[in-house]
């Protein structure tokens, strides 16, 4: 399903405190399930979401290396937590705190991914807006491709090093 990316607007949607977005994808990131909160906030119909790549929600303000980190981690069978700015069908954006875990089949192989998104803390949004902006800037300056990824990742690692924490600890503690 080749969705035409909506044009982003400055309109923000804010999750309710107890909103609980759930979605599932197959190994390629194709959506196989989304709950009603997901359908509601993304603005897509269930039928539009099912079979679509999860990255139809990807906002252009997000650095690409974040998704690389995300995929590298869950493909290695580990969970990842990340603050993500998502793009709704109507062009508005909404911030989530995403937790993505691999799903395993009976033989213990990764069979898909399970993602829960919650309302992020306002302070965390502020922090990551700044970090992502700098990373995105680094990616643009590097001109894309591997160099952009490297520059952006180096910036993230430098930030973590300055704070003296691991990525997980930082994301969960911010």
């Amino acid at each position, binding site marked *: 399903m080749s969705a035409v990316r909506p044009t982003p607007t400055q309109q923000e949607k804010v999750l309710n405190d107890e909103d609980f977005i759930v979605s599932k994808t197959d190994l390629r990131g194709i959506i196989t399930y989304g709950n009603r909160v997901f359908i509601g906030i993304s603005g897509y119909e*269930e039928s539009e979401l099912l079979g679509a790549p999860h990255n139809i929600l990807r906002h252009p303000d997000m650095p690409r290396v974040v998704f690389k980190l995300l995929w590298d981690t869950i493909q290695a069978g580990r969970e990842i937590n990340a603050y993500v700015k998502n793009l709704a069908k109507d062009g508005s954006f909404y911030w989530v705190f995403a937790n993505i875990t691999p799903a395993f089949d009976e033989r213990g192989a990764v069979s898909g991914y399970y993602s829960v998104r*919650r309302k992020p803390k306002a302070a965390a949004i502020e922090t990551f807006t700044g970090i992502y902006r700098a990373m995105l800037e680094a990616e643009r300056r590097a001109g894309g491709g591997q160099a952009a990824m490297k520059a952006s990742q180096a910036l993230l690692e430098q930030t973590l090093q300055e704070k003296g924490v691991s990525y*997980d600890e930082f994301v969960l503690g911010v």
Partner: protein
Amino acid sequence: MTNLSLGSRIHLLAGVAFLLYVAFAFLGFRAAGANGWMITLMTLSVVVFILMLYTLHRIQVALARITARMEEAAGGNLAGRITGIRKGAATEAAAWALNDLLDQVEAYFRETNAAFEHAQKGLTFRKAMTSGLHGAFRQSLERVNVSVEAMADSQRLVQKERLLARVGELSAVNLVKDLKTIQDFLVAQNQDMRVVANLSRETAEEAEASTAGIQAIVADLNRVIDLIDSTHGQITQIHEKSSEIQQIIQVITEVADKTNLLALNAAIEAAHAGEAGKGFAVVAEEVRTLSENTKDAAASIAASIGSFGLATTRMMNDAGHMKEIADTSRSAITEFAGQFQRFSESARTSLAQVTRAQDKGFTSLVKVDHFVFKQNGYRTLQAGLDSAEAKAARTDHHQCRLGLWYEQGEGKKAFGQLACYDRLALPHARVHGNVHAAMGLLNERWESDPALQEDVVAAFQAAEQASDEVMDALDCMVTERHGG
């Protein structure tokens, strides 16, 4: 009919209703005859019936899907969801409610697993995220977080204890090593001290024996000086007598000279007398010859006595020198005797000090022996009952160095009569006994049995207390033997 499932029952009831309707229509046709309205109505009713049955079928299919997901979930597979839910369908709400339930349950399990898996690796910052979970799910996750916090606490404690144990182990191993170095040093020093003590004893005894010899020499020398003194006196007397003899010889020589002159005068007178004086002249000549002889004899005596005087003068000088030398020797040897006396005394003092140092050295050694013995007892907790440490800690109080020393060795000889000696045996036996008792408690349960651990600690404490008493008794013995 009650045995039939709901779906089948609805189908059956619908079928019966349809048959009744067909029967009713048939009777209606028969009574009133068929007309256009009736046919249209009947056709519509049949269509409605078919639609109703189709709807029923769809509900059944949806219910079957819901049931299948629920059965999967009951079987522990929470992954499945119902998708493609039609808006407005009779089962829409039920399907979403089931999805929501499964989302809650699956998220609950994933959060629980994530929190515990991280906590197990010590990453206790990864708490279960409760946001979005409801009611019992949320309460349970909150409880999980309390457990994770408790795990973090106990992990910190375990880490700390592990570090303490490792450092303790390191220190214990090195302590025994260090103590063994000191032990070896003290053993060597004890042997050296024994040699020094023996040398000191020999020196003191020889000095004492030599002091008596020197005093005998001083007495002999005094006798020699006395003899020289009396010899000197006698020689002086002889010298004085030889002067007297010289004077007597002078008198004899003068008498002989005068006799010679008289004989000469007599010979002249005899010649004057002629023949009558011839006999007298002979006598006068004889007298003159006699006086000449006398004079010669006196001169040779005088010469002899002269050389005799020279000899006695020399003898007197020599005797004077001898006396001076003997006097100097006497004062030198008297001083030497005094020095030797002092030397003998200091040899005795140093023997006492060496013996005291030897005793102190030995008590230090047995103290270290006991440190090592206790450490071996402690190390058994780590190293186990089959270890070299355990073997070393099984020595009893008769066989250890201290036991051998005070029961049958030098200790009994040197200290046996002292009051403090009697204070040693009992606490010493208790040191060994309590360490053995502690080791005896180390059965297969001790690591998990707190009561047993208490007993082990108590036994070691008793050993430490007894050990303190042993140290006191040893110090007391040394003080009692040598003074403060």
